[in-house]
């Protein structure tokens, strides 16, 4: 089993070494914690970190993700601009297939716009 026969053997060796390098200290730390240095969890120690203030509630707070609509609209127009400008410049020299592909691409983006329209995002209130 020489290096000529298995040219990628060193990758396996490298992977095993890297894994040992990462996992070895963790195992050592776990053994050290088990036999020598006891763990001392506590209410304050395990509570949510709030710069020393008393933490209220849970750290698992649900954030409202309503801004994703703006993100989608931005993406629609941003990507459209990037691709439509070179499309317009090279328009006369393009083949039918390329134009069809581009139209499908624009259709996909317009779909997002239509979806936002149906959601009522475009209505000024």
């Amino acid at each position, binding site marked *: 089993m020489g290096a000529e026969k298995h040219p990628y053997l060193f990758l396996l060796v490298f992977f095993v070494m890297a894994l040992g390098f990462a996992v070895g200290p963790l195992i050592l730390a776990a053994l050290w914690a088990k036999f*020598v*240095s006891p763990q*001392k969890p*506590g209410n304050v120690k395990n509570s949510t*970190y709030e*710069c*020393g203030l*008393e933490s209220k509630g849970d750290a698992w707070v649900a954030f409202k993700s309503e801004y994703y609509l703006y993100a989608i609209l931005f993406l629609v127009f941003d990507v459209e601009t990037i691709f439509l400008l070179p499309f317009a410049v090279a328009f006369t020299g393009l083949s039918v297939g390329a134009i069809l592909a581009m139209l499908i691409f624009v259709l996909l983006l317009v779909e997002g716009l239509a979806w936002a329209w149906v959601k009522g995002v475009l209505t000024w209130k």
Partner: protein
Amino acid sequence: MPNGFPVHSDYFLAIIRNSVFAGELMDEGLKSELTKQGIYVVKLEQLYNWGRSNSVWPLGFGLACCAIEMIAASMARFDLSRFGAEVFRPSPRQADLMIVAGTVTKKMAPQVVRLYNQMPEPKYVIAMGACAISGGPFKQGYNVLKGIDRYIPVDVHIPGCPPRPEALIHAFMTLQRKIDAQKVFGPDRAHHFDADKPSEFPIPLYGEHDLVPAKNPNVWEPAVVVR
């Protein structure tokens, strides 16, 4: 020693596991002779303490003007990183040294104790400056804690108002010597190896007139004045 073996240039480290339990197994003369050859025989305990005393990570935490001196100590001129302690951590979860740098007001004291409680063991405290060790110039004031050692165990006290960075570096070296002398096994082993010794200390509440309780009697007792 076999001839031609490059002993002098190499830095060998041999660990005798048994000597951790059995004390000094190796003869002092042999140890000294080996050291001359470039072979250092240490106890596992010494290696462990050497490692952690040279990588003490302080909590990025300043209360008053002493913090400016603490920052100066970590900058290029005084260069705390020579001691492996320049990594000021923004979270107590990653820190093992709390430098109480400045005036601890009674409003702030519960937060300081809570931060100390949230640090993982082994943890150490340096009380920096006159205010942190005793209340300093504000000792007669109504709102200043008269020393943070009333609530948490302080390892090194630095007087000064504020102490210069050299004083903080000296405190650091004192702490390093303290860590180096800590035992891993045995009845006099370090605080954090003992499962019965507490890692958390009671957090005082901001009461009607003063902090309740006014001190932690397990940590601090007022000094007896002998006249």
